[in-house]
């Protein structure tokens, strides 16, 4: 089977160069031409930096192809660098032979200096082995938009569209989509609209006609074999927000989203706040503790309380999680993981909060944990998490990360009408009884959940709190046997969720192959691709992606035991590996990376190959 090709393109420039906009428009044109793609916006570290410095570089990477695309690509085949700093920062990422387009107009002495580079960098040999094309982007843009009436510095801001024109030509993408986007976006500003259109067209025309020392290559990527359906581009933060809103509607409850801003979790807060049509009330609390507490208060009041943060903020919430556990209130805790410990690397990606999610509380305090695999999956995971929270009356932790929140992927628009409605614990008929008991502690025999009785309900007044409660009455109890019963109940309640969870099936491959590569979270793409390639190379290897981390699917132990080896790649020091040892008594081979960078396909593939050959050799 010829599976089709893919090209990785990286745009890099100063924060003010409009690189993110350029990237997202190129992603849009990519979608129109039927290619699959995945993007990776690589923002500068949290602070705005002086113009021209290396730490002010903003980049956008996209992998597009005529096959299924699941990562933004290990290495850029094409780099578009808008200034020296961007070139310097991106160069180590490139494979030999990569194509580099540089905006030579910006490669001035001053800019080299700002980036800490020698002024003759281009001729210094540093670019040997690459295919370099120098374009006077700024100059040509200025010329193209001369008629717009904009001043020079404003005019120059159109150069991202000039570059886009060039790139569209290289990939034979239609210009029309971008054009109508510009028309709509800048409808109220004639000069800017015309400048951007002119720049786009000029870049395109230039590419078509230019006489260049090295000819501008063209890439021919036929459409990818998408399943039929209706698609859009979605980031993880958007999909998460949509999933939350959908879940609230499916459960017919108000949702109160309580958060304190923190990188990289804030995009969810921002999106929900910006789109009131989603009907989710957002509350920016004074700190993370207040955020989770307000969410608990909201759930106590009968709404769906959600709180969202990243590692350091989640740490602050752990005491309150205990309260939600013991009072048995539904609650969603979203963790957009980032590099740590402590403030760490706020804008970088890591999967190192699994320990915290599973084990990170005082006392025996189990919480269900779900991990998001890719941007669009955030939607479904959010719904699943809410479903479990209100069905079992429990807090649920949802793990995502900065990469997923910001990356954009094509997404088949789900049909909400086809999603099962979400039953809350009061609606789930309590076994053996016709209606909700007047006791807030009469449990459902199946889910072990207590009913969601909320203030305002007539005649059902009850008191609840953080002290241990009597199993029958809910009154404070210091009774030893009761504490044993309640501790076991809390454990069983979470374990019983296994009955809801679908049996684990491999993403790729079958049970019983030589090797299973087991992943969770955003390493999904790299593992999927590596396993796909390895299988094409003839290796017997399966990909298993865990959405459910607590409880684990009930068949997982058996499934994993069927493989010769189990490899667990993670962006941490081995946290899922711990979990598998603890829960399944299975000792996997680890592949750990903690560099703040996404996992690479090649890193997984190499290990698969090594393991296969070791086995062959043995």
């Amino acid at each position, binding site marked *: 089977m010829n599976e089709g090709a893919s090209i990785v393109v990286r745009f890099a420039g100063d924060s003010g160069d409009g690189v993110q906009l350029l990237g997202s428009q190129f992603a849009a044109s990519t979608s129109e031409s039927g290619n699959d793609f995945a993007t990776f916006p690589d923002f500068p570290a949290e602070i705005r930096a002086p113009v021209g410095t290396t730490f002010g570089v903003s980049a956008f990477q996209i992998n597009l192809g005529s096959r299924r695309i699941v990562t933004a690509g290990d290495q850029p085949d094409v780099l578009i660098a808008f200034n020296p700093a961007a070139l310097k920062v991106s160069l180590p990422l490139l494979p030999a032979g990569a194509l580099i387009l540089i905006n030579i107009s910006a490669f001035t002495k001053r800019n080299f200096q700002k980036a800490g580079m020698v002024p003759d960098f281009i001729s210094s040999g540093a670019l040997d082995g690459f295919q370099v094309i120098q374009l006077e982007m700024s100059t040509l843009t200025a010329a193209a938009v001369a008629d717009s009436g904009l001043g020079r510095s404003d005019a120059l801001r159109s150069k991202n569209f000039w570059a886009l024109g060039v790139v569209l030509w290289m990939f034979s993408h239609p210009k029309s989509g971008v054009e109508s*986007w510009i028309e709509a976006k800048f409808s109220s500003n004639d000069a800017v609209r015309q400048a951007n259109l002119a720049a786009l067209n000029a870049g395109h025309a230039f590419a078509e006609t230019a006489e260049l020392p090295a000819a501008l290559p063209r890439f021919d990527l036929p459409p990818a074999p998408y399943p039929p*359906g209706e698609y859009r581009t979605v980031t993880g933060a958007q999909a998460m927000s949509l999933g939350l*809103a959908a879940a609230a509607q499916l459960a017919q409850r108000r949702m109160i989203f309580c958060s304190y801003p923190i990188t990289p979790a804030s995009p969810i807060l921002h999106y929900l706040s910006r789109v009131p049509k989603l009907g989710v009330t957002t509350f920016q609390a004074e700190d993370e503790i207040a955020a989770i507490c307000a*969410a608990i208060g909201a759930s106590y009041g009968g709404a769906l309380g959600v709180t969202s943060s990243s590692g350091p903020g989640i740490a602050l919430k752990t005491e309150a999680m205990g309260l939600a556990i013991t009072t048995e209130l539904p609650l969603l805790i979203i963790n957009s993981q980032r590099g740590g410990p402590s403030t760490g690397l706020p804008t970088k990606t890591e999967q190192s909060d699994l320990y915290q999610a599973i084990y990170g509380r005082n006392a025996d305090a189990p919480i269900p944990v779900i991990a998001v695999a890719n941007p669009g999956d955030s939607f479904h995971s959010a719904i699943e998490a809410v479903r479990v929270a209100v069905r079992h009356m429990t807090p649920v932790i949802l793990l995502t990360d900065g990469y997923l929140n910001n990356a954009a992927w094509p997404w088949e628009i789900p049909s909400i009408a086809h999603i099962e409605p979400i039953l809350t614990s009061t609606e789930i008929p309590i076994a053996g009884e016709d209606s909700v008991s007047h006791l807030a502690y009469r449990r459902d025999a199946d889910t072990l959940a207590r009913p969601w009785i909320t*203030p*305002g309900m007539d005649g*059902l007044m009850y008191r609840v709190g953080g002290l241990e409660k009597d199993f029958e009455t809910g009154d404070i109890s210091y009774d030893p046997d009761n504490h044993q019963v309640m501790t076991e109940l809390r454990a069983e309640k979470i374990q019983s969720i296994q009955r809801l969870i679908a049996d684990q099936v491999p993403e790729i491959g079958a049970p019983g192959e030589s090797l299973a590569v087991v992943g969770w979270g955003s390493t999904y793409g790299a593992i999927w691709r590596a396993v796909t390639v390895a299988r094409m190379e003839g290796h017997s290897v399966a990909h298993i992606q865990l959405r459910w981390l607590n409880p684990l699917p009930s068949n997982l132990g058996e499934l994993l035991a069927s493989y010769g080896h189990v490899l667990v790649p993670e962006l941490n020091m081995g946290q899922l590996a711990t979990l598998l040892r603890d829960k399944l008594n299975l000792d996997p081979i680890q592949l750990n990376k903690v560099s703040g960078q996404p996992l690479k396909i090649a890193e997984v593939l190499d290990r698969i190959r090594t393991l296969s050959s070791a086995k062959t050799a043995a």
Partner: protein
Amino acid sequence: MNAVLTAKDFATDQEVRWCPGCGDYAILRCMQKTLAEAGAQPENTVFVSGIGCSSRFPYYMNTYGFHTIHGRAPAIATGLKLSNPDLDVWVITGDGDGLSIGGNHLLHALRRNVGLKILLFNNEIYGLTKGQYSPTSTHGTRSPSTPGGSIDQPLSPCQFALGAGARFIARGIDTDNKHLGSVFLEANRYTGAAFVEIYQNCPVYNDAVFASFTDRQKAAETQIHVRHGEPLLFGKEADKGLRVNPDSLTLEVVNCSGPDDARGSVKIHDETNMALAQMLIGLHGPDFPVALGVIYRTDGPAFEHGQTIHHPPPLDSTAGVVQVMRDVRLWKVPPPD
């Protein structure tokens, strides 16, 4: 409509577990009585507390009740109020719960003017954990953690509230049921955050710290009950008053009887005046009476009614979500022919 309820209807069947003689008993009885009088609906009333002796309060009120975690009651109550602004939400906290670990949440609940009635039981000690000094303990307080006497400057709960931007600040005394009940009623009527400091005696760990002005015998001379629009008079015969010294910007006691009756210079209480509030809050013995009642009140929109906060979704339809989901560039992949 409920049948008319009595104080008893607001009591639960739980054994009350405070020490004998604790001021909390009186406050509890006062609340049960006041709610009955006010015709409160138990099912629409919620008591949210933190941790501390005082925070056991909800267990004894036959309403909804949430005994949460230490210091976080204002935050939890804020979420509750957002989820259902129609509820009457009372927050019960202590000087440790509300001003030590919970200072930040109290600050922001007051600042935002969330529609909560916040009662701070100030016994100037950590009762539940056996008597350590608290942020309101007077300088030199001997306690298990400060056997040599505390060296901290104490916080004034009401000055703190004023600095936090609170718009309703009142004070009462545990055992003065009549007055305290009237303060509860005012708090209950207020739509924003109503902050009430209650001087509460802890006979076990900090007995009689307020006795100099709570003692009923001397109350008339050591307390001043402020009422908006009325002159600031006190004393058994209303024979003393407070006037403002315009130079020192402080209050002074003046004689309001006999030949040199200075009644004319006595300040009329204006509960909307912040400077006056500050001065009243700062009064203390032996030279001044302690100010009780509603010291400060100005109107302001309650947070939970804010436009952008309160937009209940149309519960019966997913149309909004579907629309937002589709409100971007879409593309179709046709089924293969």
